[in-house]
């Protein structure tokens, strides 16, 4: 995995599909992407957008077919688009309630990102000023996983005119602003994980072994990072997320007492107490892909690329590094 000289500073890895997630997904996504691209461009931050269109539903147009018209700021030459065959979702699933294996999708993007740093985020996350300033200054260090707290914007806020004034107005916040707490600096981790590319490859991305839940996989990557001797730091400011229907943040207790039925999986799994060792083929590394255009690829289905359904030896105890925090405490599930 050598670094190319023309590698951008940062690859922004996003995943999604045209399935109406959270209600009017594409509108929220395009609006957010436009804002972020404008900010990145105005600050001269060299970047690429790596988008993984995971298991797109049949019968709906692909996002790639809509986005170039809807987001004029998106330069196809700095865009790397990967459409992943829908059969991977079914073949990899260990929980039929999970309709979207978000972190496997992210791994597809992380593996294929070219940037010196790789930022995994979500399609409805606005980068805050401090985040952009850190990128603009290039004030990033290898072997440091950067986190940003997520500030949730009220559902009722008019999203059609979202700008700094709206995002940074404390009256628009839905609840108190989150503060990251060491050592894990968790909380909405999936919205912002920034790490140098080599380290991301060293830890082999997010956990691909535990495919029973979507929730907690982001927190689990923090355990893996600490266990691998990578430190975790707050980048200095928030990212913003506009609440929407179906968001875990606005309905965390929706499955109280029947956690196993949640469409994000059972949140009580020991995501803070175990680590993992993904196979070298992580991120569908063995999957054949076809070029459909200059920056557009289709990841074809092959059983050879599908890891075993069960690979228990790859769930391991996290290592307590000298000076680092101890692994998580046991929490009784049942």
């Amino acid at each position: 995995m050598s670094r190319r000289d023309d590698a951008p500073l940062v690859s922004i890895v996003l995943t999604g599909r045209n399935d109406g997630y959270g209600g009017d997904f594409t509108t929220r996504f395009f609006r957010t992407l436009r804002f972020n691209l404008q900010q990145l461009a105005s600050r001269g931050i060299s970047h690429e957008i790596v988008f993984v269109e995971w298991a797109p539903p049949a019968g709906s147009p692909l996002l790639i077919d809509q986005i170039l018209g809807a987001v004029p700021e998106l330069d196809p030459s700095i865009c790397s688009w990967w459409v992943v065959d829908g059969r991977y979702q079914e073949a990899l699933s260990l929980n039929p309630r999970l309709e979207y294996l978000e972190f496997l999708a992210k791994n597809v993007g992380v593996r294929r990102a070219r940037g010196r740093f790789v930022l995994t985020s979500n399609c409805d996350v606005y980068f805050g000023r401090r985040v952009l300033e850190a990128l603009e200054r290039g004030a990033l260090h290898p072997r440091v996983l950067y986190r940003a707290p997520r500030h949730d914007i009220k559902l009722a806020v008019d999203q059609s005119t979202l700008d700094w004034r709206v995002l940074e107005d404390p009256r628009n916040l839905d609840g108190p602003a989150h503060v990251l707490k060491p050592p894990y600096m968790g909380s909405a981790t999936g919205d912002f994980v920034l790490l140098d590319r080599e380290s991301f490859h060293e830890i082999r991305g997010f956990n691909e072994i535990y495919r029973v839940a979507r929730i907690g996989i982001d927190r689990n990557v923090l355990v893996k990072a600490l266990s691998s001797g990578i430190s975790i730091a707050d980048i200095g400011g928030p990212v913003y997320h506009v609440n929407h229907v179906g968001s875990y943040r606005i309905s965390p207790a929706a499955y109280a007492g029947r956690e196993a039925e949640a469409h994000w999986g059972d949140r009580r799994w020991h995501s803070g107490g175990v680590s993992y060792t993904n196979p070298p083929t992580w991120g569908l590394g063995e999957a054949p892909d076809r070029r459909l255009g200059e920056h557009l690829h289709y990841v074809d289905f092959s059983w050879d690329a599908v890891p075993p359904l069960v690979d228990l030896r790859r769930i391991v105890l996290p290592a307590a590094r000298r000076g680092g925090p101890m692994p998580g405490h046991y929490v009784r599930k049942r």
Partner: protein
Amino acid sequence: MSRLLAAIASTLGIVSARRHRALQAQAADLKSAVAEWKSKATDATNRMRTLEQELRRQTQINEKLRASADKAKQKQGDIEKLRAQLQNAERELAGAREHLMVIEVKLDILEGAANVLDARTRTAVARSAGGTGAPV
């Protein structure tokens, strides 16, 4: 002459009246002193007995304290042993909990895999039987 008479009288055990009075007074003083010293000796003897008793009592207390100190020292040693055992037990418990977490996570995976395989098998069986593929 008078000296000679005095010497003869002295030889015969005869003293002058004045001398006799003086000696009587001296004897009385001595008796009084003897009585006083006897009293002091009695007091001192009593005091000595008291002090001896006190010494015995203090010796007993000292022995008791020494025994208590020995016991306390032994207990302190026991406490330190118990503390070390407790720390070991806590470490082992933490280790057991970590292993328990790993086991539970693996069980989750096995349960998920079993459910998925069950569903796939049912679908395959239904298909091979010419059914619709719906769960049976």
